[in-house]
């Protein structure tokens, strides 16, 4: 029995598998089309400009990178904190982390003004730059998590999984700290420039990464006509609720501290009250869909009923949507609000000083962003088909049904 469960690729469904592969492939092809077009014609074809310099591709990229770090959390809880349920999910967690990071970095690279100079970025490091440190963290993440996966999946190296797991744990904390600091270190913009950015990104990464993990896990179980044990489902739901709650707490503290500083009032008014799309995305996307709704679903006590779409899948999906909204508000909203050149003065110029900047993502930005998701999706689909990433719990035969919750 256990063997059948472990051999994930033996389940057939070849047509469906290739259909999924085709879907991922189409998304990747779309991103490549956008990349070559922009490489030839320049970013003039995008909605990005000299005011909104980071747009939709960066929203998706940073979301995927942050989620990658968070997806590894499941493995960390197993290896670092010794929780057996999570240990069995460590390989899937590590693989998902690598897939998500690949997707995020893929978008970042494809959106560069000079992607042909990637080798320059890999060989010339300005160690004053948190961006340069991020590159080291990203490359190191691939190496360390790759090694971690080997120790998890090769019996002879099992002993090393704990120390390497520790290293991966601290490395990803560093990675997310550095990613949050990309924004925290921008001194001049009202929307960034906060020491809270780093810890806030870490806690958000926990929520986004676990949410994606839960969706992927549920999909794999469903694909194999298996049911995840209710106790495990409840544990993960509670953990997700803690992370979502903590993310909401950091969001509240971030805006409250801003509201305490008179010089930040205008920015807060922009995001919270009259920022148009950014205000809508903040309240409806980030707060309601990303936090209030999933928390409500996660805390509802229900009997073991049968449901078409489980709350334990729906809630994480809402967290993912809310996470993308949060990134949009943080990254694009932070740029849309104008720089303060002369405090207490109104400024006007031909270079759009003093005005809220408009951003309308074009088709190429959408293609790049979806391409990043496509890379992560395709890598995951292939990996779970080829390797034994399905968590190897001790299943009871009676649970072989398509129940959810």
């Amino acid at each position, binding site marked *: 029995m256990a063997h059948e469960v472990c051999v994930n690729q033996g389940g057939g469904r070849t047509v469906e598998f290739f259909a999924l592969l085709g879907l991922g492939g189409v998304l990747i092809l779309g991103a490549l089309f956008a990349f070559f077009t922009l490489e030839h014609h320049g970013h003039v074809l995008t909605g990005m400009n000299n005011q909104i310099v980071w747009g939709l591709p960066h929203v998706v990229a940073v979301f995927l990178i942050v989620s990658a770090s968070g997806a590894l959390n499941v493995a960390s809880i197993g290896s670092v904190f010794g929780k057996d349920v999570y240990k069995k999910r460590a390989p899937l967690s590590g693989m998902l982390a690598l897939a998500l990071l690949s997707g995020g970095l893929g978008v970042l690279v494809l959106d560069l003004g000079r*992607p042909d100079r*990637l080798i320059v970025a890999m060989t010339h490091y*300005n160690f004053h730059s948190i961006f340069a440190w991020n590159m080291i963290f990203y490359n190191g993440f691939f190496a360390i998590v790759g090694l971690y996966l080997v120790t998890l999946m090769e019996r002879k190296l099992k002993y090393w999984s704990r120390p390497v797991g520790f290293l991966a744990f601290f490395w990803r904390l560093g990675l997310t700290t550095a990613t949050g600091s990309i924004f925290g270190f921008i001194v001049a*913009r009202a929307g960034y420039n906060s020491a809270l950015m780093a810890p806030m990104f870490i806690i958000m990464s926990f929520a986004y990464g676990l949410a994606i993990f839960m969706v992927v896990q549920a999909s794999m179980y469903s694909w194999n006509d298996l049911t995840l044990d209710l106790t495990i489902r409840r544990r993960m739901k509670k953990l997700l609720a803690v992370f979502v709650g903590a993310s909401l707490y950091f969001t509240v503290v971030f805006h409250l501290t801003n509201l305490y500083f008179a010089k930040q009032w205008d920015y807060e008014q922009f995001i919270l009250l009259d920022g148009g799309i950014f205000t809508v995305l903040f309240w409806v996307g980030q707060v309601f869909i990303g936090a209030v709704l999933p928390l409500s679903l996660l805390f509802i006590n229900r009997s073991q009923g049968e449901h078409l779409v489980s709350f334990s899948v729906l809630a994480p999906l809402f967290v993912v949507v809310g996470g993308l909204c949060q990134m949009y508000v943080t990254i694009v909203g932070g740029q849309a609000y104008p720089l303060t*050149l002369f405090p207490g003065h109104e400024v006007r110029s*031909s270079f759009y000083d003093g005005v809220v900047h408009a951003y309308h993502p074009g088709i190429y930005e959408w293609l790049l962003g979806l391409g990043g998701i496509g890379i992560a999706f395709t890598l995951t689909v292939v990996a779970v088909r080829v390797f034994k990433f399905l968590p190897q719990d001790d299943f009871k035969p009676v649970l072989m049904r398509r129940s959810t919750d």
Partner: protein
Amino acid sequence: MSDSMNSKLEDRRDFLKAGGLVAGVTLAPGLLFYGVAQSRAPEEGASSRQRWGMLIDTTKCGDGCSDCVTACNTENGLSGKTGPQDSQWIRKVDVKDLRTGYVQSLPMMCQHCDNPPCVDVCPTGASMKRADGIVLVDRHACIGCRYCMMACPYKARSFVHEPMHDQKPDVPRGKGCVESCTFCVQRVDKGEQPACVEACDAKGHKAMLFGDLKDPQSAIFKALKSTDSVEVRADLALDTGVRYQGI
């Protein structure tokens, strides 16, 4: 002591005297010029003995005049278009005091900070500060990540969104790279003034004063010593090379 021995000693003295004279004649001018001139030949690198800067008197800056902008565009091969994706290295900013309603106009460009955020954040080191304080972008190392544009407090940088044609030989620009005011480094290195300053002088406003902030004999040094001037966003402590008076 024999005669032959004496003669050898005299020869040696003569040789040392002659050698000393030759060495003195060879080295002295170089040492003297080094001490006096403190300037550099065109083929030499920039020197930290200088720091180029600008003092802008906003009370002299003509309302509605944009000759500095036009001169910059002409000198550096910019189109002069003002769409959201077009490059603008210098722009006229109207600043209105919200309490009093007083409006003044001033040119805004790269402030050539001594602690430039753009240089700090650039992952590859393409954003760099020359020894003489001019902040530039190395067009061969810029990967077009635009992090410097996020970091600049003065919105001084532009991203080249389109392929470039008919560029100025002295001012290479490239699609996918970030660019900004260079203080017309190609002119400064020849001992000339930046194009904007020259245009402002030609118009008769004389609102822009360019020079070496470290040279006590320079006009800008003397002006800064006798006038109250401010840095824009002085709270950020970036020690800008461009200073303003009258605001």
